[in-house]
Structure formats: structure tokens, C-alpha cells
């Protein structure tokens, strides 16, 4: 045959790669287990909000209106201005990240405002998650952004404006560069003269 071994190997490799892609995308199910979800089933659990706002339900509120829900449902754990605790400090800390006492808050650290909305709906209040209305979630989100000086008290936070909120630490994250140390292996060991027989 005219095809050299190396060439053959590269054809085979390309074939594997192509086959892998096709297989994932188009192969019919191998086992036939599972069933299609009903639309309402999917709607009930498809709750993640993308940074571009996909998934946000229609609705909106302002910090002025949201102060009430914050006071009733959030303040016990997070303090009157979001800075007092006893649980996570939510406000303040801007400019502290590069200091010896960094404060990681919504205003100083969180890169996306949509994450705040997602997390409040998903998990807050801690002991009664899932009990806030859509309007209350927009209100609490707006109030927390206001406590951090990111939106004004009367700014409307809704499914269109929330993804456009510019978070101060939006560009503060970098990809994982590790291993950043530990390679190559340092000086060789002493002979293992004390190893057990």
C-alpha cells in the first residue's frame, strides 16, 4: 500500500475525532431508557439565569420598593445595611480586594448582577427558599444593588435592565493558571536506606 504508517495513523485519528463528534450529536439512543420531559416539568426546574438575562421572568422593582422585603426577609441575617451580618456581608468592601483584609461582597466581588437574582430565587431566604414572589426578588435585588451604590434608589431593575447593570468587579476574574508552582520536581531524594525490607 502507498499510504505510510504515519499517514495511516493520522487518518485513523481524524476518523476517531469525527466519529466522536457525530456520535454525540446524531446517534440514536443506545439503550432507550428515559422519557421526554413535559414542558411544565422542564419549566419548573429550568431556573438558571444566564449573565445575558436569559431565563429572567418579566417583572421589575426599585430599591425604594424593595427595602420593605429586605427588612422583612433578609435583615435578620444580613443586617440593616447589608454590612452587619451575622451571616454573609453583602455590601461595602469596594477597593479592598487587593488589601490584607479583603471584603468579598456583592459590590466588591460579584461579577454579574444576574447571579444575585438567580441566587435569591434559588436559595434565599436561607430557611424558606422559594417563598419570595418575582416582584420581591426584583425588589431585594434592586435594594442590594442600591446598598452597594450600584443603582439609584428609583432605578427600575427589571428583566431588561438587570443584565446591563455594570458590576464593579466584572473584570476581576482570571482563568485557572495552575500549576503555578511545584514543577519540575525539586532535588532528588536521599537513597531510601531506611526503607523497610
Amino acid at each position: 500500500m502507498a499510504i505510510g504508517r504515519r499517514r495511516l495513523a493520522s487518518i485513523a485519528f481524524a476518523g476517531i475525532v469525527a466519529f466522536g463528534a457525530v456520535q454525540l450529536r446524531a446517534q440514536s439512543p443506545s439503550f432507550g431508557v428515559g422519557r421526554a420531559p413535559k414542558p411544565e416539568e422542564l419549566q419548573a426546574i429550568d431556573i438558571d439565569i444566564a449573565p445575558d438575562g436569559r431565563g429572567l421572568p418579566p417583572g421589575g422593582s426599585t430599591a425604594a420598593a424593595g427595602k420593605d422585603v429586605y427588612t422583612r426577609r433578609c435583615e435578620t441575617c444580613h443586617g440593616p445595611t447589608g454590612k452587619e451580618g451575622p451571616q454573609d456581608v453583602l455590601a461595602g468592601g469596594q477597593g479592598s480586594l487587593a488589601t490584607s483584609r479583603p471584603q468579598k461582597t456583592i459590590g466588591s466581588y460579584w461579577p454579574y448582577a444576574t447571579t444575585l437574582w438567580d441566587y435569591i430565587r434559588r436559595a434565599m431566604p436561607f430557611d424558606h427558599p422559594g417563598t419570595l414572589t418575582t416582584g420581591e426578588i426584583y425588589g431585594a435585588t434592586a435594594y442590594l444593588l442600591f446598598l452597594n451604590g450600584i443603582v439609584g434608589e428609583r432605578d427600575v431593575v427589571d428583566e431588561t435592565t438587570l443584565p446591563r447593570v455594570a458590576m464593579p468587579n466584572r473584570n476581576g476574574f482570571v482563568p485557572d493558571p495552575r500549576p503555578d508552582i511545584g514543577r519540575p520536581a525539586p532535588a532528588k531524594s536521599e537513597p531510601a536506606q531506611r526503607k523497610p525490607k
Partner: protein
Amino acid sequence: MSTDSSRSRRWFLGLGAAWSAAVVACRSRVAGPDPSLLGAAVSPYGSRSRFEKAVRHVNQNTKVPLQEASSRTPLHDTYGIITPSSLHFERHHGGVPEIDPATHTLTIHGLVERPLVFTMADLKALPSVSRIHFLECSGNSGGEWRGGSGETDVQRIHGLTSCSEWTGVPVSTLLRECGAHADAAWVLAEGADACKLDRSIPMAKMLDDAMVVYGQNGEPLRPEQGYPLRLLLPGFEGNANVKWLRRLKVMNQPAMSREETSKYTDLMPDGTARQFTFDLEAKSIITRPSAGDTLRGAGQYQVTGIAWTGRGSVARVEVTTDGGATWIEAELQTPVLRRAHTRFHWPWTWDGREALLASRCTDDTGYTQPPLNDLIKIRGTNSQYHNNGIQTWKVAANGTITNGNRA
């Protein structure tokens, strides 16, 4: 009560002490159960001897609700490489839900040809695999970042790592069944717990060795480990191994959930934060003797511990007694498994003088576990997560052992 009751400190294997014990045994009458009495009957579900007291450590002195807290494996008092399911560390974010497996489902949707809902019976009908892997919380050993914490023993400092045999279905099988788009880069995993914890996982990991698991050490998963179903990502930080798994969504971009932005990110001295730091790097700890133990005088001791790496297999563990001036290779106990705890041993003749005892692990990528201070030089003291620095135990001349990171 002293916490000593929860932990055996009299583990010493000094030959002199063993000889003394043998002499005492010969002199006194034979100990043991009264031979004229019957023992206990068979029982439907076994439990350990009432003489064994090791338990997970729960820090009660915290303002954090215990549903959002952690409990730590008694590494000092476990053997081999498998952590008993009852002693596997915990870290929850919304408590442990009680889920009826008859009603639990896993939904896979998003960028797929065929969204599918799997019941537990569906999943158990698929070809299964069983694999031994460690799980470690990326916050494990986090107290040591500030130059050595006041923590008193190996359980409190490093107890957020455990190792089990896990049984389940490769995620790749499920993604093929759904016809996941091969060019989709991420998969969101979401739990059915109160906080519906969610993390975005690279598709490459999902197609490599990720599993959805329903079995742990031969039994169904324990509730605190995600019963009836969890995600297992061998070698990835614990938080990404979503428990009580209810949903996988195939996506082009990460969801940027709260856990992967505001929490499990590593703050550097310049104020930037590293994100999606999934891999747990090579690490080892001497578990015996360790802080809290007291050596009974000069003599022969077995030094033992565990080593692991999220990047592959443990290639070598070395031990030092002089704070790292010289290193001696320890013996690795088989099996040495990929992304699993590996047990090591080293026989030590203690000369009765002050010693700085430590281990370091090299993995099969050539990476060697660094000194804690070298990590701090690069990452500062506020990165919180992923501390795989060398742990030093300080042995005093009187035999007491303390946390030597505090030098």
C-alpha cells in the same frame, strides 16, 4: 468532656511499650469475654464495637447554621484508603434533604437532541461502573493559609477529604443517550436540595470520567452524600460534585452561579480572583503520629498517612524529620489508584530529640507538593481554597506533637 474520648491517642507502637504490655498480659489473668456467657445474636444491620469512638468533627462554635456547615473525617483513626461512609466528611449549603428514590428524577436538557428524564430505575438499568476516588473540599486545610492556624489535630485541619468506592453510570453514556451537542462546552449540574446548588462543569470533564453515582462503598449513597444520586467528578473540588442531582443542562457558556463566582474562587494578592479552579493538586498528610499524639519515648514508630492528586496518580511520597532538609522515600501501599487516596508508610526510629515531621507527594505529572510558604509567596494568604502545602508536625523532646506550620 475532653475531646480525647472521641479519638484514640494511645496508638503508639513503640517496641518497648509493646513488650511491657506483653509482660503485663502474661502476669494477669487472660482478658476477654466471659467464656461462660453467650455473645450477641445476629443482627440485620451491623454497627461498630461500642469501644470505638471516632466520629466526624462538627465545629459547634460557629455563627453559620449547621445546615450550611461541614463535618470532618477522623483521618487519625481511619485505616487503608477507604473512608467508612458514616465518617465521610460533609459540607452542605442548605441541609440534607430527604428524597424518596421512587420519585427522584434526573433531567438532561439544553443543547441536546432529545431532552430526557431518567428515573432511578432507568439509571440502574444502564451499564454501571464502580471506581475508588477521593473527594476533597477545596476549603480543606484553609485555616493554614495565614501561616498556620491554631487548629489542634489532623482531623480539624485536614478532615475535609475522604475516599470511597462509587458506583454509577458514566455521564458520557447519558449525554450520548440524549444526543448532546458535541460542540457545547459546559454542563450545568443542579441539586434538589433547599439551595438548589448549581455548578457549571466543562464538557471535557463530563466526557472524560464524570459519573452520576447511586452507590457508595457497596451500599446506596448516604443521604449526606447526595442520596439517591450525585455527580462525581474525580479529582475536582468537592463543591462541583453536586449532590441530590436533579438536572444537567448542556450549555455554550457557564451559568456564572453564585458558587462559581462569589464563593469557590481564589482571591490573589493583586485583587484578581482565579475562577474555575477545579483540579485538586497533589497533597499528602502524615495522619499518625500527628498533632495531639504523644510519643512514648525514643524508639521505633510507624509513620503513616495518605496522599492523593486530582491530576492522576501518586508517584512518590517522601518523608522528612528535619523540616525538609532531607527527604526519604516512603513505601506506597497498594493499590495505588488514579484520583484516589493512597496510603503510605515509613518506619521511623525516633532519637528522642525535637523533630519536624512532614510528607510531600509527587504525582505522575511530575508535580511535587510545595511548602506552604512557597504557595503563600505566590497566592498570598487570602485565597482561602486549594491549600495543598506541606503539613509539618512538630515533635517535642517530651514526645508531644503540635501543628508545626506555626513555626
